[in-house]
């Protein structure tokens, strides 16, 4: 069976544009969470977000694409360009039907959507953009990336909130197994407009803190919700043997295992299913708990969600049994982009032998029994990493990444 190697990554994150900037900030514990600047958020109960700053779409994309794309699609297109360049892949030199695109989406191009809703409701139907039919919808990033790069093979779009980022990677792996040579995959999201923020508030999961260093505290006893963010990552996935044949290109690692499960409804009295997702993913990778060097946790920063995740990790690895980290404490939760970015961070940890810290959280709540990496990055051998992502409503996904030589 084919082995899914990651050969290129492209990052657009609140604490760094491009892989190098993001990784350096992440290892240093530099957060991208700050006051919302995209609009005047002073009248909203949520004041902080992980905005991507300094991203100038016109510097990277042809001007004709700008009127037809939402902010999140522009970031996705640029992340895809960077991932391909990183993998030293020229799509124009590969057979078109041998390349596919699978992205995750959580809420579509919401800022574009708000503008067109305002045109419709405030001015009239004739003011609605000719691009509205596709610029906001969930499939737009896959479509635009495939068009920009001439990729005509099997594609897909998965929507399972934060878990979707991992589901997309797993679906990309399926395409490789069926014979597609290369798949661009991952997720990039943003809904940081007034309407997008307003639609997130009723979830009750957002932090209302205005203290940027203390707003999002995964696994902390004082956790009070998460900070929303934007951005994400696009990855190049290729079959390992083909990737190896590509001269001296680096291989970041292998997507060795994956599983997803769904939680029973609240008040059903049944157990959540995250633990099962972890166990199935380990089994799919052919590894055991002892092989895992680190867990990149979902880290919702919401007490009841943190408790369930900590219990699942402890059940599989034992109390304090494995280093756990939540680098998204520096970016906020990026919806479909968050898990894809965590996968990049995990691959870079494997490459550099160092785990990024969880910032904000001083010490995890003792009852969680977690060895949380806090304070500073932690060096050590990292060969096998488990990445967890959970989507609002009960979606659990788990991915196992291994070093390329395993």
């Amino acid at each position: 069976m084919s082995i899914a190697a990651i050969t290129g990554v492209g990052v657009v994150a609140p604490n760094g544009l491009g892989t190098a900037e993001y990784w350096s900030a992440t290892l240093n514990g530099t957060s991208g969470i700050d006051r919302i600047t995209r609009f005047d958020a002073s009248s909203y109960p949520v004041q902080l977000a992980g905005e991507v700053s300094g991203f100038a779409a016109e510097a990277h994309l042809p001007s004709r694409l700008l009127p037809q794309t939402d902010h999140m699609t522009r970031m996705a297109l640029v992340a895809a360009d960077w991932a391909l360049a990183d993998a030293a892949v020229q799509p124009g030199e590969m057979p078109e039907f041998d390349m596919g695109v699978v992205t995750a989406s959580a809420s579509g191009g919401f800022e574009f959507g708000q503008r067109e809703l305002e045109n419709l409701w405030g001015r009239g139907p004739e003011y609605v953009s000719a691009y509205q039919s596709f610029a906001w919808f969930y499939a737009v990033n896959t479509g635009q990336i495939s068009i920009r790069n001439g990729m005509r093979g099997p594609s897909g779009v998965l929507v399972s909130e934060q878990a979707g980022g991992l589901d997309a990677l797993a679906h990309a792996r399926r395409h490789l197994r069926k014979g597609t040579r290369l798949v661009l995959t991952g997720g990039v999201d943003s809904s940081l407009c007034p309407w997008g923020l307003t639609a997130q508030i009723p979830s009750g999961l957002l932090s209302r803190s205005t203290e940027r260093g203390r707003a999002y505290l995964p696994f902390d006893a004082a956790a009070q919700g998460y900070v929303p963010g934007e951005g994400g990552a696009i990855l190049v996935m290729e079959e390992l043997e083909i990737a190896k044949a590509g001269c001296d290109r680096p291989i970041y690692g292998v997507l060795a295992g994956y599983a997803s499960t769904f939680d029973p409804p609240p008040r059903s009295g049944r157990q959540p299913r995250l633990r099962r997702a972890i166990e199935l993913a380990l089994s799919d990778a052919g590894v055991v708990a002892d092989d895992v060097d680190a867990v990149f946790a979902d880290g919702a920063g919401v007490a009841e969600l943190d408790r369930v995740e900590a219990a699942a990790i402890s059940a599989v690895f034992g109390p304090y049994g494995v280093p756990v980290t939540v680098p998204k404490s520096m970016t906020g939760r990026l919806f479909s982009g968050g898990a894809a970015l965590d996968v990049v961070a995990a691959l870079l940890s494997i490459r550099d032998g160092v785990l990024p810290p969880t910032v904000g959280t001083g010490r995890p709540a003792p009852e969680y029994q977690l060895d949380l990496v806090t304070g500073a990055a932690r060096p050590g051998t990292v060969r096998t990493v488990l990445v967890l992502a959970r989507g609002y409503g009960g979606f659990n996904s788990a991915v196992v990444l291994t070093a390329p030589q395993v």
Partner: protein
Amino acid sequence: MSPSRSYQAGGRRVVITGIGVIAPGGIGAKRFWELITSGQTATRSITFFDPTPYRSRIAAECDFVPEQHGLSPQELRRMDRAAQFAVVSAREAIADSGIEPEQLPADRTGVSIGSAVGCTMSLEREYAVVSDGGRRWLVDHSYGVPALYDYLVPSSLAREVAWVAGAEGPATVVSAGCTSGLDAVGYAVDLIREGSADVMIAGATDAPISPITVACFDAIKATSPRNDDPQHASRPFDKSRNGFVLGEGAAVLVVEEFDRARRRGAHIYAEIKGFASRCNAYHMTGLRPDGREMAEAITAALAEAKLDRTEVDYVNAHGSGTKQNDRHETAAVKRSLGHHARTIPMSSIKSMIGHSLGAIGAIEIAACALAVEYGVVPPTANLHTPDPECDLDYVPITAREQRVDVALTVGSGFGGFQSAMVLTGSGVRS
């Protein structure tokens, strides 16, 4: 050993054992099948809102009264219309499959729901409130309803279905525009084949008949402006066609591993033998005239099914009724099926129930399964004067009794997505 490894060599087969449909013209799979084999149409003037300011003022609406389907007041408040469709269809499909919901193996049951535009109707309704009719960019969050986040993230559609089915296996929403329904069922087939699930509650739902959707299709003249004759507005392959008619609805299927279905003595409608998708990498809304990527998808789906193109008995067309689509698709079918394309029936049920975006792909899979079941090919309504460039056998006006062992269904959508699925009856029908 992991499930995905242990089953790989076994060649797990996937069958449809339950069907639930909500479509314009009637609720339930039975009413749906009666309508689309009668040649009657369910397209009409829009009644959901005042369509006067719009170019296209027609749609295929469902007469759906959620209270009649057992949805509680809190469920009604929480669920967008698309979620209501999905839940009611899922219940029908599970009942039809003969499985008691408590007998579904929770860990081995998954959910895959397609939707192109998610909870768009609720989002627009609530936007109008928080923006006070589009008056303020800085919308008033204090008017946000409790379920607003459920509308923002359409993954809530899969959650609702998972709760109905008691599913605790893999669950997701697949959203690839107008191929969402085909892709969601294709995704379910993948999961069963690889061993990640034994049963998938799979299908698609969309409820897009809302001002913003009508306006956005107006803006690119994709929908038909035949406002004076709504019942005959959807005219796939006809020379006078002038766009699609927006629809709504859902189809949810119980998709099951074959041996499991056989062991429990289930009624099997059809086997899903092959699925493939391709992109045109050309234009977000435009199509390359040569139909090559749809042809590639058809060829790949037949290859996966290990069937020769001459074995196809029926093609369920995308047949949206736009000038561009129907020619593109005709070219694609000729390209992939060769001379055989001219000898087989190919019809578009969108002529009768409109185009419900992501949902229609699943509804059309249901139509194919029922065509295999009953040996009847539904017609293309409103097809009186074929476009000279559309020169295949589109089964005009009247349904045709004919054995269907191998059905091919195709979809084409914004984003450039092209998908194809092959269903068969032989070898699995009891």
